[in-house]
Every structure is written in C-alpha cells, then in structure tokens.
C-alpha cells in the first residue's frame, strides 16, 4: 500500500512527505531540527513543553510540531520573529522556576535545558518570580531525585510506565505545584522503583541523577598501594560507548585507550568483566543443560540484569524458580577478586577495593545487596562507576583520552572471548549462551558462531532452534514492558520456552541508565543509537580468534586451579546467589 503524499511548505521551501508525518519529522527532511524538550519517539506524544511550537498559516495560535500532522498545502514558519520570541520566553519560564546553580550542577555543559536556553537566546531574565522548593530525595542506592530541577516534561513518567512497565512515577498535585515522584511522593527507596535508571537516561536536566560513587573511588585511589589495592573491572558495553564522551564518533571501540586511562588513574589492576561473562556462560549453560535433562523449571531466565532482577522480585516473584541462580558477571568478578585473586596475590581481601565500570545504574544497588557480601559483611563490589562518572573522572584528571596508546587488560582475568563482548547488547547473552549450549547438546567440536535470530534491537524476539532433534524455543526481550508480555505468555503455558534473555534497558546494556547522554536533538532511546553501539561490539567479537566462552583457556585454568566443577560446591558457593520476593509489591 502506497502512502498518500502531502505537499507543504516549510519556511518557504516546498516539500513532499507521506500522509501522517508530523511537522517535526517533515522539517528534519529539510535539515531543520525544531527545538524540543518533552518529545521522544519511543514515548507517547504529549505536546507538554510547547518548545516546538511553529506558526501555521490560518491559525491564530501556534501548533506544536511534534504532534501536528501535515495536511495538503500547509504553510509553516519555524523561525519567524514571533516563534523565536515565543520559544525563548517558554524556555525562560522554565529557567525561572529552576535553581540557578548551573556552574555547580552535575550536568553543567551537558544539560538539555541549558543548551536550549543558550540556543534560543535567553540572555536575561524578564519574568522572574517565586521558585518551587522541594527537598532532594537521596534515599535510593542508584537514583537520586532533585525535583527543583524538574521541568515537568514527563519523559521519566512515560518511560517508567510505557517502556519499563513499572509505573513507579507520576505527576502529583496540580498546576504550579506539580511534582513528579513515586506514589505519595515517598522516597525512591520505599517505592517499587527497580533502579533501572531509564529515568536518568531520558531526563533532560539533573532532576534525576545516578548516586555518586566518584568521591569514594578518588579516596581509594589516593591511598598507598600497600594499604589499599584498588582493582577495576570494565563491563563489555563500556568499550563501545566511552568514546562518545570524548567526542569520538558513536560506535568507535576504545578498549585499548580505556585500559591505559584506567592505569594512568592509578588502578593497581585492570581486569575485564568479559572474563567473568565467559564464566557466567559456563555456569549458566551447565545450569541450563541440567534443567533440560531433568525437564524442570524451564524456561531458564537469565539474571545478569539487576534492574530485571529487581523487577522479578517486586513484580513477578513467582518466576524466581525459573531464574538462573548465577550471579551477574560483575558480581562473579568481584567475588573472584576477593577470593581467587586475593589468594594468588597473598592479599587480605579487606585490603582490596573493587571498582566496577558499568553502563548500568542498578548495579550500584546490586553491589549493596546483603547477600552480595563476604561473611563479615564487606561487599564484594565496593564502588560502581557509570560510564558518565568514569568519563568525568578521566577529564577531571586531565588525561588526553583520544590520544592515548592502546593498553592490554591484566591477566589472568582479562582474557575473554568474543561471546563475552556481545553481552552488552540485547540478544548478546543469548547468542553467547547458545554458542556453548549448542556445542554441549550436540557434542560437536565446533558449533555455529553466529545466531542471527538473536541479533537486532527490537524489543521482543522469539525463535525456535532445532538442536539434536529437539526444538529449543528461545526468546529475547529488552525493556520490561516487553518482558511482561513474555512472562505472561510463559505463565499461560501455551508454548514451552526453554531459554529466555531479559534485559531491563531497551536495547540492552549499551542503552543503560549510566551511558553517555546523546548529543542535543538526538533522542535518548533512539534505536539507531542502539544499532550503532551494538555493531561496535559485534565487530569486536568478529575480530577475535577466541569466540566461544568454553574455549577461554583462562577460564579452564580457573576451574582447574580453584573452582573445581561448573555448578560444583565451590562454584555454587561463590558464583551463585538467591532471590526473594520483595516489598513494596508492584502492580502489573
């Protein structure tokens, strides 16, 4: 079916677009990015901020480009003096109800409100008046709320409800006194928040931020080596995205520079979370095969996404029995550092400080879970830095990142297969698992490497693989609303799934709550961004010799020297965990 084409004029330029196109998209075809704040392509269109107003012939009032569909013969002005003044005034009104602390704000230089104010020419305050006064909510382990900085764009409410299916946030009150927050404006800690940090990712200002861990890491780095041995591990997703924070094109792999930068900062050992990703595959594949043999507790649900685990415990506790008991790669690594590595180096675990660089905000919460600690209560992971926090630390130090020479991860926990690299994208864990599981099931030496069915950034993928005469039904979901659909299907029991990968963040870890903010006019959840970042990881994988987790010699050595059997007693004690239903219980 061919779309009907519409002819219109924007700023005097004629243009033809399919019927149903909005003015915002139509203008983009002419290379005009109409300024906007509340608009987001993955979320419902609200037309709330009014920044994208345009002047349309025949109307006395201005129409918002994000919501207005074109009609035949439409004549639009996007930059007339009246529009310029209106946009300027609207943004100033937002500033007038906003703290005046740009210079000490976490998003100074990186804030959409600030950028729009500059771009739209707010050079003086004409309207000044009373400002809202609302206390900061510092209670959460992962996400902090500063409602005074909120411009009520509603992106957080929409992402939490529409994409994540959690609906923890809502506007409360009315008019000038509207505040966005959890039910009853309780603390995030007392709410159903699952700490996924998507609110942080989409927030145009500093109203939502991750909990800062940089302070404690600076402190740890400053201590002498013999008092504190600071070890860092780096998640797969970081190497594909850190470069963006330094102006490199999106999708540039920066693994080598990343390692060098970390060493320069003073970390005593730089390990690769990829290593424990491989380890996770071994443990999980073993767990999976055992369940397939016994025919119980299928499907197996992955468990490396802490946002998803929170969601599991608060919303779907009855699915706990399906969830893999494997710790996440980050936690496996931290545990090994304070046991295996400590033993090898002859260090007291108390003297080791473990820092994890993660694209994820929920990992800060995961690190603080009581069961993720040693017997004396000291957590395995001491600090979690988001990609953004690390970028800031590197800049703060003064390191010229883009010109660094490439470095190599330390051994042995720096050797990894390509299967580990792709953990960072949706479908990656599944593909990595299949590379090992299929081999184990068929008994063949070399199994398939690439599983096309798992690739692609859409929210929900299902496939059936024929392995050894058996149908294996797999599913991959990202974004928790999609997970809900899947879990409901599992509960209905109409189809027997075997292996399901669930990632909390839409697009997987590369689109996590801790990733660099996209440039102005680029949408924070754009599928294109996910695709480009994912490609970087797939390319790294393709460029490696070692591509299957179970072929990683360092892993084999680890089992031989220290762990024993996969899923054996020691492996279970160190590398597995448990979950339990938590309150407040979410409403589905």
């Amino acid at each position, binding site marked *: 079916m061919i779309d009907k084409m519409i002819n219109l004029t924007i700023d005097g330029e004629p243009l033809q677009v399919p019927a149903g196109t909005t003015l915002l998209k139509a203008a983009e075809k002419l290379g005009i990015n109409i300024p906007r704040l509340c608009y987001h392509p993955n979320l419902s269109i609200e037309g709330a901020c009014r920044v994208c107003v345009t002047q349309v012939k025949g109307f006395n009032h201005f129409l918002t480009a994000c919501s207005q569909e074109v009609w035949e013969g439409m004549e639009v002005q996007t930059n007339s003096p009246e529009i310029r003044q209106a946009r300027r005034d609207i943004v100033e009104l937002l500033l007038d109800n906003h703290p005046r602390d740009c210079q000490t704000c976490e998003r100074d230089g990186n804030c959409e409100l600030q950028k729009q104010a500059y771009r739209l020419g707010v050079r003086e305050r004409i309207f000044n008046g009373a400002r809202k006064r609302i206390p900061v909510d510092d209670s959460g382990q992962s996400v902090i709320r500063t409602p005074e900085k909120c411009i009520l764009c509603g992106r957080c409410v929409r992402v939490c*409800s529409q994409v994540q299916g*959690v*609906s*923890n*946030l*809502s*506007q*409360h*009150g*009315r008019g000038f006194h509207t505040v966005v927050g*959890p*039910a*009853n*404006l309780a603390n995030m800690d007392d*709410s*159903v928040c699952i700490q996924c940090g998507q609110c942080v990712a989409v927030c145009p200002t500093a109203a939502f931020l991750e909990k800062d861990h940089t302070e404690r890491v600076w402190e740890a780095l400053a201590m002498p080596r013999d008092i504190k041995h600071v070890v860092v591990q780096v998640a797969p997703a970081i190497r594909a995205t850190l470069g963006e924070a330094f102006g490199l094109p999106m999708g540039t792999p920066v693994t080598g520079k990343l390692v060098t930068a970390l060493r320069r900062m003073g970390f005593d050992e730089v390990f690769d979370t990829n290593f424990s990703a491989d380890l996770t595959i071994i443990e999980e594949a073993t767990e999976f095969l055992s369940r397939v043999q016994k025919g119980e507790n299928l499907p197996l649900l992955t468990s490396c996404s802490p946002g998803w685990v929170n969601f599991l415990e608060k919303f*779907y*506790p*009855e699915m706990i029995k399906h969830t893999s008991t494997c710790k996440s790669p980050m936690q496996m690594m931290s545990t090994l550092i304070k046991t295996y590595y400590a033993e090898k180096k002859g260090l007291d675990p108390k003297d080791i400080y473990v820092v994890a660089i993660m694209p994820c905000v929920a990992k800060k919460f995961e690190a603080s879970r009581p069961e993720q600690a040693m017997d004396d209560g000291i957590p395995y992971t001491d600090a979690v830095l988001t990609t953004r926090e690390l970028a800031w630390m590197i800049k703060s130090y003064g390191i010229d990142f883009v010109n660094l020479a490439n470095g190599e991860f330390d051994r042995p926990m720096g050797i990894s297969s390509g299967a580990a690299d792709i953990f960072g994208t949706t479908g990656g864990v599944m593909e990595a698992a299949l590379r090992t599981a299929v081999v184990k099931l068929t008994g063949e030496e070399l199994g398939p490497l690439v599983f096309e069915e798992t690739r692609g950034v859409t929210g929900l993928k299902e496939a059936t693989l024929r392995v050894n005469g058996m149908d294996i039904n797999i599913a991959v979901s990202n974004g928790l609303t999609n997970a809900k659909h899947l879990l409901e299907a599992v509960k209905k029991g109409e189809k027997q799934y075997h292996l399901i990968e669930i990632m909390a963040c839409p697009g997987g870890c590369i689109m996590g709550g801790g990733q660099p903010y996209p440039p102005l006019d680029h949408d924070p959840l754009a599928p294109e961004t996910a695709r480009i970042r994912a490609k970087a990881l797939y390319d790294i994988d393709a460029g490696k010799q070692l591509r299957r987790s179970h072929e990683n010699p360092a892993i084999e050595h680890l089992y031989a020297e220290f762990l024993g059997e996969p899923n054996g007693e020691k492996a279970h004690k160190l590398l597995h965990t448990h979950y339990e*239903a938590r309150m*407040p*219980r*979410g*409403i*589905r």
Partner: protein
Amino acid sequence: MSHAVANTDNWEAVKAACLEFLPEHIIRYIEQNAKTTHSESQLIAILHMVQSHFGYLGKDQMHSVAQLAQIPFAKVTGVATFYHYFRLQPRGKHIINVCLGTACYVKGADKLAARLMDQLGIQFGETTKDKLFSLESTRCLGTCGLAPVIMVDDQIYGPVSPAEASLILEKYLKKNKGHKTAEASKG
C-alpha cells in the same frame, strides 16, 4: 484492561490486608467492578466512596485501592492529588466552605473569609487545633443569587455578612460544647 483473575502472586494476603483498611462494601464494589471493561476508569468513583466513608483519603486506604483495583499505586496517588475535592488529611468535624466564585467575590467574600480566618485562627486548608472546624475555599457553588455564600457541611447559608457568619459559627460552637472535653478525655 480488566482482570477477572488475581494478577499478583500474593492475592489472598493482599485481600486480607485490605480488609483492615477498607470497609466491606467498598471492597465488594471494587471486586465487582474489576470484571467490567475499562475497570480502571472507576478509580475516581472509588476514591469518592473512600472519602465519603473516612472523610479523607489515607495512605493505607489508597494503597489498598491500588492493590485491589490493580492500578499502579503512583497512578492512584497521582489522581488523588490532582483533584481538589479529595483531601489527603483528616479534617475537622465541621467543614466550612467559603465560596470565592465571581458573584460572591464581588459581594465581598474576601472580607467574609478574613473574618472567619480571624475568628478560627486558621488559614484555608487548615483545621483548628481542637479538630472541630476545617476552613476551605471553594469555587462557585452555583448559588450566585445568594451571594456571598458559605457552606457548613451540607448546609448553605447566604447571603451572609461577616457578622452573620460569626454568629453561624457561634451556633456550631454551642452545639459542640462537649466536643473539647470528649477530645481531652480520649487523651
């Protein structure tokens, strides 16, 4: 979105807990309603029932409504705080509403309000210490021919001068002479 079947793992425990906070007739209403299409649209009617019963919307009551009606808690409180008819704090025994609609305003409702605030010692939205009176302002009650108007509970008085309003208050105070002692003896 209707749910004929319980939609959470601990439904029985949820229902039992809700009995503690909501009266039976409201729980029954929510359950019956849950079977209809667009059941979540009855939220405002449910909140009206709760407020009718308790005089205000308590946090535990709202949470129970959220659980029973299977509406995310944040959405329930978001709705409750949007509509000014809903009160989230318990109020006094008698609610005094001063109409600030145009007709009343033009006939001096602001002076009326000032006199009442003075006499009671509270502002709009507040309750006297002895929990006898709450003072509110309301938008037009639709009795403009009697401007200026005050409403005490369901009784409309109009037109009232500031002096007449004081007398009306006195009447209620007299009627509630025992109120203070009752409160005091409750400790």
